[in-house]
């Protein structure tokens, strides 16, 4: 019997080592270990052995069984690994092929820049207000210290609906509209669409966008105005951007100023964009004229304030290097996809 067991063991180990696939291995398992398997047959003959031999033979048989099983398991694992590796190899793909296109759109460049600007001012404690685009002459001019006979009405070519109703020429009407309903402190920006009867060319559009700023409180100074605008310009165009404040005139602010920033394109060296001056005009601003505060129902003895206005289209063009304002309103998707 011992001989038989040892033969089975040696033969099985020999056979297992030759096995090439899992099916063969399963057949071998049945051959030796199955119900009718060779080892099982031998074990069945155990009963015929003398009682004193049984423990020894039993142990040997178990050892053989254990050994065969171990060999089979190990071999099976090897075979499975091979098979898996083979499969993985078959499944190999070209990872350099571009990924599946997930279609996502874009915001319009004007919206993107506006969002940036809004974030900057929100960070400085501003809120956002809006006003009508079809506006009363009163808010657009009269209440901004621009009476009917005022020469600066000529500067802004206005679209009229009736004598008293027009398309707002700037976002400034929201100044007095806000003062009428809100007591100081007021700290708002007003993005919006404005209209002037300019013929269309690379730098003019009869419709464009402004962002107005308005601050009214006690002790507001021109130094504060400079501080806020300087922070804004540096946040928008970069820390190294310089600002220049030039005296100017607006009927609704006094003192008034225009603000230049060092050219975004050349950094102040001088280039085509800045007409070789190194500077680009980016906004108008000033201390709110007491008359305007009065129109807004605010005591100009107690409160002061400043206002500023910037052209969104121009800033978007500067920021993205767009050389023709018309592109903003043509909406060619190949243009829009770039932002």
């Amino acid at each position, binding site marked *: 019997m011992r001989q038989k067991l040892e033969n089975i063991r040696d033969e099985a180990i020999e056979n297992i080592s030759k096995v090439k696939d899992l099916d063969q291995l399963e057949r071998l398992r049945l051959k030796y270990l199955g119900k009718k398997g060779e080892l099982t047959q031998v074990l069945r003959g155990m009963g015929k052995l003398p009682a004193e031999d049984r423990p020894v033979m039993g142990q040997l048989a178990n050892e053989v069984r254990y050994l065969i099983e171990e060999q089979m398991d190990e071999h099976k694992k090897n075979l499975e690994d091979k098979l898996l590796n083979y499969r993985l190899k078959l499944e190999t793909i070209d990872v350099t092929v571009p990924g599946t296109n997930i279609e996502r759109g874009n915001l319009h460049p004007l919206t993107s820049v506006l969002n940036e600007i809004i974030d900057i001012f929100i960070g400085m404690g501003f809120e956002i207000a809006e006003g009508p685009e079809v506006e009363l002459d009163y808010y657009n001019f009269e209440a901004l210290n621009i009476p009917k006979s005022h020469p600066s009405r000529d500067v802004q070519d206005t679209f009229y609906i009736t004598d008293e109703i027009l398309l707002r020429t700037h976002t400034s009407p929201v100044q007095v509209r806000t003062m009428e309903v809100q007591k100081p402190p007021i700290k708002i920006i007003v993005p919006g669409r404005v209209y002037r009867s300019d013929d269309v060319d690379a730098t003019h559009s009869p419709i464009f966008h402004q962002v107005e700023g308005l601050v009214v409180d006690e*002790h507001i100074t021109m130094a504060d105005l400079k501080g806020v605008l300087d922070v804004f310009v540096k946040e928008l165009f970069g820390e190294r951007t310089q600002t220049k404040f030039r005296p100017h005139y607006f009927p609704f602010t006094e003192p008034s100023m225009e603000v230049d920033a060092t050219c975004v394109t050349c950094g102040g060296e001088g280039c085509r964009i800045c007409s070789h001056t190194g500077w680009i005009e980016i906004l108008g601003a000033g201390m709110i004229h007491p008359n305007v505060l009065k129109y807004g129902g605010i005591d100009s003895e107690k409160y002061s304030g400043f206002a500023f206005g910037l052209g969104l289209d121009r800033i978007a063009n500067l920021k993205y290097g767009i050389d023709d304002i018309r592109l903003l309103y043509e909406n060619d998707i190949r243009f829009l996809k770039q932002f």
Partner: protein
Amino acid sequence: MLVPLSWLKEYVDIDISTEELCDRMTMTGSNVEGVTCIGDGIEGVVVGKILKIDEHPNADKLVICSVDVGEKVIQVVTGAPNVAEGDLVPVAMEGARLPGDVTIKKGKLRGIESEGMLCSGDELNLTDQDYDGAEIDGILILREEYPLGMDIREALLLNDEVMEFEITPNRSDCLSVIGLAREAATTIESTLKFPSINVSPCTGNVYNEVKVMVEDTKLCPRYCARVIKDIKIEDSPLWMRRRLANAGIRPINNIVDITNYVMLEMGQPMHAFDLDKVEDRTIVVRKAKEGEKITTLDDVDRELKTNMLVIADAKKPIGIAGVMGGANTEITDNTNCIILESAKFDGPSVRFTSKRLGLRSEASTRFEKGIDINLPRKAIDRAAQLIQELGAGTVVDGIIDVLNADTNPRELEIRWQDINRLLGLELKPEEMVKILKSLNFGVQHRGDILDIVIPSFRLDIKGTEDIAEEVARIYGYDNIPKTLMRGTESRGRKTKRQKLHDYGKDILVGSGLYEIITYSFVSPKVYAMIDKQMPEVVTISNPLGEDQSIMRTTLIPSMLEVLSRNRNRKVDRCSLFEIGRIFIPKTLPLKELPEERQMLCIGMYGDELNFYNLKGIVQMLFREFGILEKAEFTPITTDTTFHPGRTASIKIGDTYIGILGEIHPKVGENYGLNIPVLIAELDYDTILDLSDTQKYYKGLPKFPAVERDLAIIVKKEVLAAQLENVIRKSAGDILEDVKLFDIYEGDQIPEGYKSMAYSLIYRAPDRTLKYEEVDAIHERIIKELAEHMGAKLR
């Protein structure tokens, strides 16, 4: 305002570079927009005299000129027919440079050597305004005597730098060389040296020559007149012509040039009437009479309104006050005697008249913005002085000066600390006084107060804020510190609605849409293009053109136009959205502001895109805004813009929100879009109003679900929404979800019918459902569907 530097330098000492002057002037408020020099680009061109002209042996159209250029005589071949022996002409010598980077070289013309070139005005880049006769076809013939060989830039005064100032409407005083000289003197701390105005002793008496009556003293607070006799009309001297030309005014003759010169120098517009043509030698300043007409100097007949101020003689208007003179009293070569007018007219009145007539002039620009009440008298003497100096006529003694205004200087009392408070500075009163005095203000410091006397030319100064600006601009805006505001801390943030508004855009962008921005005014024709009647609209009274004349009431035409543009540019797939305002008049004609409403328009085309892609996007938006459950899509066949079988109108609860569908092929065709185009237009404001983004947690299911499929056959017209309605109603609470996963028509399905396959998910919150229970409900659904929808099990 164009100012020749030489002119400015006559009144103020300037010893810094032009560039520095420009920078510093800009920083005190006189913005310099540029500096030009008409002689730039001309080099090596001299005055030459044609001594002799010989025929060219080899060419009929060329001649050979011997030209004396001072140190030598050179030979020049020219083809110009207008030269004669003895003419003085500009000669470009060998190596000369002309505008446009042309360099002159010696060469042979048809075998004859030419040592230079005779120049035309055009070749020197000159116009008639720069030098009379510069635009003739031929060589520029100089009319004055010059030393031969003199550089042409020097001879014709072409090397003067001209500064262009941007004068803001408040500074009418700076519409003059003297005004800017005052600014320059303060800016660079230099001294002013105004021309002294002296009229030499005269004979006669102006009161014997002319009578002046000012009827409307409000619109004409001051009217000064002088009479000049023995007028000798001729060209004014070159220096005056050049200065006028450099300042942008065309020289005419000595008298007109002098009036213009004084206007540019002092800012006082002047006019000269031919006295012999003035009826009764009487000047009446009055409002125009009903039906009066005048032909102005520009030869245009103009009808006058009764609220326009005119200068008239005894019978008729001879000028529109402050705007333009009449042709009937124009100065001609035969003029012998003139009335010089120097007046102040009411700004708003001039502005109204000039605007109404569509006639702007250098004079009207200045009157509109206001004239120093003291100026007319000074200016008329200045003109008389120039007339004497130029020998243009004999000045009659005396000035008629009709003055009906206060000439006392205006005064102002301000607290000097208010200036510091506004500017954020800590200036001492002495510093303010110094600045204000340098600007010609009279100032006394008295405790907290500055007593200020405003110079009469500073019409713009009215209050503390104006004085603050004067102090600030001379102190230097750049010297004011940059501080951040004190005071109440404010919370910067967007409102919930503003955030939601932006979130909506993010969702749309995330769905693959690109944002567009289009004009808010459109053509009235767009309504025909989208096959609609034109509704009541807000109309622009002075549009740029018919095509941009009404405020839009829908975004759809703009969207279609953009889609069409992209399609024309061979873009094969386009998915866009716009959020923009529409304008709905409440009354017509407009009495109050129209309603402005934000609309969302989505537009797409492209091969694989259909109605359901667009609807999917709209549903996603609704889901994110918490209104999908309440949204109802109903077929609409009657909207003429849309495909009658592929369009839904949308309601949230009872509120109409908008429309969604495929564009009617006829409308598509109007835009050159012969492919399916999908459009949705939704009322974005209302969507924001109705949105409910508050989230509530619902417990996770504790018991398993039972899933059953259901395939039925129904008539084609039966709507999915109707079926789902019946299913939900008959199932009751334990139906958790219904999903339509297949719609099929064709083989095995009778004509006119369709198969609809649903997956139904049943679940109870408190127990595991028994199969029998689900079976019963499933059966009930099938029964109800058969009963109400005519559905058969497939």
